[in-house]
């Protein structure tokens, strides 16, 4: 086949294989074919048996959702998926100059009220007679709220919650609200062609080929940048042709480079070709981190491979500063207890080892993980789930002040659609992230918002803030 134009021997499989996993994609993946493992060019690494599995759909791979429905899988108190010993907290220090941001997008609209439960407010029982969570199961944070039990170990390790995150004029449409969150446009009238993370990359751009990376799903408007290189890619084996050194592949790259010249129209396509070629230089920096003996174990989760790759990218110090990973499945119109609980279990089980991995790489102080979701859910349940809502919450891990921030949205003073009113605005949240990255938030947001006080560690956080 065309691939065999090279004279070198065919490859083995991805480093991200989990030999124990026998999930959906194990049957037909690049790993099963004669493909080059690009990492082996550099590290001379050995084969890892199994299949490269990336869940590119971005939706939570709820294992046989029919079984979750049938069993009425609830959120009874259950032990964390990691062992029962407590997880050691990671006390982040003050970040240095080169900070990294990892945004975990909770796609579908995450129910803030089921993640951070206002258990002491009697109204929650009236609103959620059957899908509510028993206070005995919660991870109690104070005498008002408790965390979903799935977050037990991540909480032990350290996390911050910003309550009541939303927008002043919420809308019930996924598309409208995703557009606003991707663009960083709370009111929805700014008509921006770039994404919030893309603009951050433009400001952070130091000439590296790729500054922003979406891992595991296709290109997202959140990463659309004006000048910085941003790429989305779905599999670590993609792009090996960029590294192969035999004459045929060199001529292919030469032809692609020529075709990517900015002339004769088709600008978007030619730019795409050009960025794809640049991605090769990011791949070249890679080390095969999988072989590090003290790498923490990442249990199975839909976002496991993406976060492992994220750790490797950050560890390689190739100039990538902003990462974006998407987890879908949060649009819980039905079967919320099971589905929502399982999603947060996966987040917990991935972020705990991810932060341990960052610590191992010396990056724990410099890497902020932050969630984003298009909206929350309606306070009143509907059947076994909830309808689209408004205000929700955000979760952050890393060099932040752990614990609760913001103000819990009121359950009694709902808006005209019976939804939660935001107490923290989207642009205030984004301004906090931008400033932390050393980017003046006024250059990346269309509105004037103040960052959230006290969320970040009491360090000199305004390190070389760049203004436009």
């Amino acid at each position: 086949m065309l691939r065999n134009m090279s004279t070198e021997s065919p490859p083995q499989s991805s480093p991200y294989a989990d030999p124990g996993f026998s999930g959906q994609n194990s049957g037909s993946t690049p790993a099963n074919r004669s493909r080059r493992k690009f990492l082996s060019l550099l590290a001379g690494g050995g084969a890892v048996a199994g299949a490269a599995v990336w869940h590119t759909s971005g939706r939570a791979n709820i294992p046989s959702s029919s079984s979750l429905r049938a069993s009425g899988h609830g959120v009874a108190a259950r032990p964390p998926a990691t062992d029962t010993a407590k997880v050691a907290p990671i006390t982040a220090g003050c970040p240095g100059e080169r900070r990294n941001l990892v945004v975990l997008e909770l796609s579908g609209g995450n129910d803030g009220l089921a993640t951070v439960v206002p258990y002491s407010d009697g109204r929650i029982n009236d609103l959620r007679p059957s899908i509510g969570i028993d206070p005995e199961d919660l991870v109690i944070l104070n005498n008002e709220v408790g965390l979903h039990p799935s977050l037990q170990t991540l909480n032990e390790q350290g996390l911050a919650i910003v309550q009541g995150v939303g927008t002043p004029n919420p809308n019930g449409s996924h598309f409208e609200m995703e557009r606003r969150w991707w663009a960083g446009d709370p009111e929805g009238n700014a008509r921006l062609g770039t994404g919030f993370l893309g603009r951050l990359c433009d400001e952070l751009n130091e000439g590296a080929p790729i500054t922003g990376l979406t891992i595991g799903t296709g290109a997202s408007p959140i990463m659309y940048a004006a000048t910085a290189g941003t790429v989305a890619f779905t599999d670590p084996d993609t792009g090996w042709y960029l590294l192969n050194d035999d004459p045929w592949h060199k001529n292919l790259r030469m032809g692609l480079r020529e075709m990517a010249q900015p002339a004769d129209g088709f600008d978007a396509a030619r730019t795409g070709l050009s960025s794809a070629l640049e991605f090769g230089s990011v791949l070249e920096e890679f080390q095969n981190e999988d072989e590090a003996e003290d790498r923490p174990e990442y249990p199975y989760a839909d976002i496991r491979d993406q976060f492992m790759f994220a750790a490797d990218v950050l560890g390689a110090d190739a100039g990538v500063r902003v990462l974006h990973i998407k987890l879908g499945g949060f649009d819980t119109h039905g079967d919320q207890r099971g589905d929502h609980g399982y999603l947060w279990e996966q987040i917990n089980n991935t972020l705990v080892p991810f932060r341990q991995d960052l610590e191992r790489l010396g990056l724990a102080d410099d890497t902020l993980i932050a969630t984003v979701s298009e909206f929350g859910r309606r306070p009143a349940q509907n059947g076994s789930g909830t309808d689209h809502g408004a205000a929700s919450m955000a979760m952050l891990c890393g060099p932040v002040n752990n614990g609760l921030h913001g103000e819990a949205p009121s359950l009694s003073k709902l808006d005209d659609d019976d939804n939660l009113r935001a107490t923290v605005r989207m642009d205030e949240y984004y301004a906090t992230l931008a400033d932390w990255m050393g980017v003046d938030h006024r250059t990346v947001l269309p509105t004037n918002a103040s960052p959230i006080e006290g969320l970040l560690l009491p360090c000199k956080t305004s390190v070389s803030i760049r203004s436009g």
Partner: protein
Amino acid sequence: MATSEHRRQLSHILRRLQFAPRPGQIAELEELSIDKAVQQIIDSDTPVLLEGEPLRNLEARIEDGDWDDLALWYLGRVTAADSGFHERMVWFWHTHLTSSSEETRDRLMVRQHALFRTHALGNFRDLLKAVTIDGAMLNWLDGDQSRGEAPNENYAREMMELFALGPGAYTEDDIRIAARALSGWQVDYETSDVRFDPGDHYSRPMRFMGERRTWDVESIVDKVCDQPECARHVASSLFQFLIGTEPTEAELDELATEFRASNLDILTLVQAIVALPTFTAGNPARARNAVEWLVATMAVFGPEAAEPEYWWLDHLAQVPFQPPNVGGWAKDDRWVGASQQLIRTSILLEFELSDAIVRDVEPTPDAVLAHCGIFDATDTTRNAMTAAIEAQTEFNHGLELLFVLALTSPEFAHI
């Protein structure tokens, strides 16, 4: 005798009306004027329907088979020798009236697919009514959990916002009322049949879009379809699918008028769109989405060139029957972004050149471009291919190089 301009136009309309030219089809069409060629493509196509026993057999096969069977079955269908304009319209409806096999059972998706095959060129009202009470759709947008006393708004909202009217053409109240009116339908997951339980249906009179009466699926869908925004929304969506840009106000007025006058007959709308000058004369205006690119690529290489793999679709971020959300797949330049380019080139390297291609296609840029249906290559693309072939000293591998470049070209990536 076709001029190269005539071939260019033919190739252009074929890219818009079909996934790929059928073997021998270009030669057939070369004798006709472009307008007659357009009609030939639309009229001579025999829709392949899925009904009765073949439908039941397919449902059973897919249900009992592997999780990747459905998507791969569909790839087989659209790359079959008889794949034509009807297939293209079925694909349009699948991307517009979305449901996903990730949230429902595969056999229900098969039944929904059959529904699209039946109604693709029929009447939009009938199509919308059928899809509203389709099992996969009831499952996907929670209609099957919607009871009169606790109506689920999901379907009502998406039906108005995405399927029929477009944003801003309805109120939150309309959604709430419609949700009540559409309640009472349930899916039997064993048989895939759908049934209506009047006891679970909200049957008290309500005011909806200015009219007070008792409402049900028929009357709600009719009322929605009666709105002027409906004809406009559907016409605009189909225009963008076939042509790639948004219609001008004048174009949209014309299309909506004809569509409404025909009582929302889909074929009438198609004819109105292809009659617009911008259909035949315009430039390629939108990027091919992944499935469109892949099917066209497979047609270029020919049927034996490679066994299609599920991971191609997965990594291209477009698996048939698994749209990422109810809005369907992206319709913008994302399809030619860096991420797509990375995957597409990787996939191209999986193919083999057939003996026929090696025998019949000269290893020159123009010959390869022509074989890929490109008669209007830019200098930049042609020069890139020339530079590469000149550097490639091993001659027959040069043909492979030219094909990879031609199928990666911006020209091939747009319709």
